[in-house]
């Protein structure tokens, strides 16, 4: 029986990293990021990563870990505002950066996973995002073409997963994870809770196991970036 379960993040990445690889990493801000797999990717020593991730983590956490060690050559993101080391490296010309509107990024990743090499969107028409991209009119409106994205490795974070790789996500920790799972040549998932086949309701599986090649159960710190509360009245 094909076994997708690995004992920890290091074991789950064994044999996958190579210098110059493209890695998709799930999460929005620090919410729903594969903390353990990011740390294991850093420990693998892999260099010159092109990282596709909506954000760049914060200093010393999330993808910030890989920025500190300069293992990332290029970021493909929609917003990178929370990371000082990122800013330093970028202004020093040590880091390449490709901005994508968030919805375009999400759709490019889904497209990559779905075998769609290009699609048209009106997002970014008339802005710097449109520069150099083919455009076409549909029903009298102009749209630009964006391309599908794939990765050599996708690392994603889920709430529960079974040994077949079926995943479910919790609340807004879902975000980019399901599409990235689809777009990785190899997808490795870390889950809060690893369960047996049949423990997840087949009607409510967010990511079918076909999109997940390796899986680990691991504890996450789950840092909060903007703790915001209201007064009890």
């Amino acid at each position, binding site marked *: 029986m094909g076994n997708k379960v690995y004992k920890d993040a290091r074991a789950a990445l064994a044999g996958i990293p190579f210098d110059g690889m493209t890695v998709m990493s799930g999460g*929005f*801000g*620090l*919410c*729903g990021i594969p903390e353990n797999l990011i740390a294991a990717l850093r420990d693998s020593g892999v260099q010159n990563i092109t990282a596709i991730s*909506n954000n760049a983590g914060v200093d010393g956490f999330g993808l910030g870990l890989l920025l500190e060690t300069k293992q990332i050559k290029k970021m493909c*993101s*929609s*917003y*990178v*505002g929370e990371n000082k080391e990122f*800013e330093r490296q*970028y*202004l020093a010309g040590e880091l390449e950066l490709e*901005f994508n*509107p*968030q*919805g*375009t*990024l*999400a*759709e490019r*990743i*889904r497209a990559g996973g779905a075998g769609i090499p290009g699609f048209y*969107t*009106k*997002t*970014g*028409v*008339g*802005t*710097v*995002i449109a520069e150099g991209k083919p455009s076409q009119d549909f029903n009298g409106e102009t749209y630009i073409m964006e391309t599908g994205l794939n990765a050599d490795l996708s690392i994603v974070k889920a*709430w529960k997963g079974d040994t077949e790789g079926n995943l479910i*996500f*919790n*609340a*807004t*920790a*879902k*975000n*980019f*994870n*399901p*599409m990235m799972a689809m777009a990785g040549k190899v997808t490795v998932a870390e889950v809060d809770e690893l369960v047996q086949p049949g423990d997840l309701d087949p009607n409510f599986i*967010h990511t079918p196991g076909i999109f997940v090649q390796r899986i680990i159960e691991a504890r996450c710190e*789950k*840092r*909060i*970036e*903007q*703790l*915001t*509360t*209201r007064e*009890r009245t």
Partner: protein
Amino acid sequence: MAWTRDQMAARAAQELEDGFYVNLGIGIPTLVANHIPAGMDVTLQSENGMLGMGPFPYAGEEDADLINAGKQTITTLPKSSFFDSATSFAMIRGGHIDLSILGAMEVAENGDIANWMIPGKMVKGMGGAMDLVAGVKRCIAVFDHTNKRGEPKFLKACTLPLTGQNCIDMVITDLGVFAREGAQRRFRVQELAPGVTVDDVKSKTEADVVYD
């Protein structure tokens, strides 16, 4: 007297309609949530993957897995649903959101908006702003009428890199409300803050606006 931030938010809230699905940007637009009329059914979308955004949690009840697009901890409502980022922006790009209320650095008389980068400064990224202005049915920009140096931000043409082209339907500033009825129409003064005169506005506005 010019409106306060909260008054601007309250004015923007008057544009809400029963049954609306609405995306609120960061800053003044966030305050609009406090002014939704009682009994009006308005559903807030958070583009990181949620419909039916509830209020901030009580201290100790926050959930790291439950945040809004500003990365603040939030809560659910009975009607809430969660979805992935592709579905979230399918809603936005597909024109399913009724109204987007967002901040701006500049808005031009042709409806262009710039709110994501200042050349020469570190660029943080556009996040979902370009998708919102391109996809949402109606966009309202809320911002101070002038910048810190007293210069107009409602311009003939944007000087900063655009977030979107010809996509703003209404402008709400501390001085008043400016609306147009279609992408080919001019903005018209619809309302002025108490004590603000047309001459006040004219002196602080570069955009060619219709003053009736």
